[in-house]
């Protein structure tokens, strides 16, 4: 089945791809944080943030259509909540929500499509995310696509047997379906564990990437922080 592969463009070789992933994660946080705490009425600032993230997207060789398409995923949801609010709150609240959520998503898409998943995990671990969570994430990533495939196939089989109906009776069929998938999955987890133990696994997952900061990374971080501070201070006042 067709998947939205998570890191389809992650192996390109652009300047952004070559950055230390820790720097990228920190920059993402700085960017989103600054965007979120910018006052709602400073439209120039939002435009400047947009230019900043677009500059990075251009540097990264990612196809623009891909970035926009991925970032538009959140629009229906934002629009729903936003339009609902439009009835009760002044329009500025609505504009504020849409602009901020979209800018943040642009930044997230840029990070996640310029960094291979395992590298990103190593970066998160280097940034002190508890390593049990990192281990769970890496196992999850390894099995999530086959599981989605199986769920979709089971669902297709169920739909074709029940003519697409989903009433109470079918709900219990869905329950059995997911229940059997769970048992299957759990037993697979146990088998994986036994296979790992027989190869010498003792609870430590090894082989994470180690990173070395270069001058280039420091320059990029400096550029990001300066740009964000400048926009935040100058443009907001103006």
């Amino acid at each position, binding site marked *: 089945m067709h998947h939205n592969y998570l890191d389809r463009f992650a192996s390109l070789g652009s300047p952004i791809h070559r950055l230390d992933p820790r720097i990228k994660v920190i920059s993402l*946080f700085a960017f*989103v944080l600054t965007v979120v705490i910018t006052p709602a009425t400073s439209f120039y600032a939002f435009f400047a943030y947009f230019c900043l993230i677009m500059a990075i997207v251009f540097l990264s060789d990612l196809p623009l259509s891909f970035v926009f398409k991925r970032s538009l995923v959140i629009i229906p949801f934002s629009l729903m909540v936003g339009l609902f609010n439009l009835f009760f709150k002044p329009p500025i609240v609505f504009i504020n929500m849409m602009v901020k959520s979209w800018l943040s998503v642009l930044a997230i898409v840029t990070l996640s499509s310029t960094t291979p998943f395992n590298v990103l995990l190593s970066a998160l671990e280097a940034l002190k995310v508890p390593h*049990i969570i990192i281990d769970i994430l890496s196992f*999850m990533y390894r099995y999530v696509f086959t599981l989605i495939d199986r769920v979709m196939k089971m669902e297709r089989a169920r739909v074709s047997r029940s003519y697409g109906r989903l009433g109470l009776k079918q709900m219990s069929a869905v329950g059995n379906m997911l*229940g059997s998938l769970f048992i299957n999955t*759990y037993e697979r987890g146990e088998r*994986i564990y036994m296979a790992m133990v027989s190869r010498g696994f003792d609870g430590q997952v090894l082989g994470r990437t180690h990173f070395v900061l270069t001058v280039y990374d420091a320059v990029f971080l400096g550029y990001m922080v300066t740009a964000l501070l400048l926009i935040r201070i100058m443009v907001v006042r103006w």
Partner: protein
Amino acid sequence: MHLPDGFLDAKTWATMDVASAGVIAYAVKKTSEKFEDKQVPVMGVVAAFVFAAQMLNFPVLGGTSGHLVGAVLAAVLLGPWAATLVMTSVFIIQALFFQDGGIMALGANIFNMGIIGTVAGYYIFSYVRSHFDSDKGLLFGVFVASWISVVLAAVFTALELAFSGTSPTKVVVPAMATVHVFIGLGEAIITTAIVSFILKVRRDLVYGVSEQTKYEKRALPVVVAIIVMLILLSPFASSFPDGLEKAAEVHSFAGKASIVLKTAMADYALPGVANASLSTIIAGAIGAVLVFALAFTAGRSIMFKRKRRSAS
């Protein structure tokens, strides 16, 4: 229900991030204390399972659809703390790779849809379970816990939006709660069906099913306190100074069209009670009780119907 960045203001998302980080740190400690290193691969695969199960949509009343959240399911199968880590991982992946929920709002999302289900949901489940000896009682506990967890998640989300000044309290809290009373039924029915299947095939996979003493009886006061606190909080959320609205007035953005609707929907209140916030609280409480009674009877009748059918 995943909140993107920009929907919550700084005080709200920062509070939720700190709260979630605290619970996650505790969960990390708890899971590594009684550590079976076996749990890591299993937890990873279960996280992938929860993620995949969330792809299935089921219809709710009137053409809308919902999907499984799976927090209570994870808690009933792995215990509250391992489940907390599993749900945290699911939300991290969703935020980073599927644009589902924001980065600063991650704590809020983990709290609303993860921790409420895995921790509060688990203790509700344990409480109900401790009053029954049968599997039927266990399933009933699963049903109640998953229903309440979805409704609570919606109320928390709504309160966070209200505290942020993004949505008006008097509208968003009742609206979200009402919609999720029905979406919660879907979650409850499917979760119960899944657990009942697992009970039949591999009982041992249900957390603590063999050790009766593990189930908590002390949880009820905690749960009741949470609910009372929520009901009491809701009128306050609207009286917080609203920065956005002020900014809008200064820049004369204030929408004129919205005023008409505002007056039409403003009063979620009982007639005859003078104090506005008091009557909102009472109305909210009565609504909650009614809805719970409805869900309770619906759940019971579904369970007994299934029992009868399988007996005949």
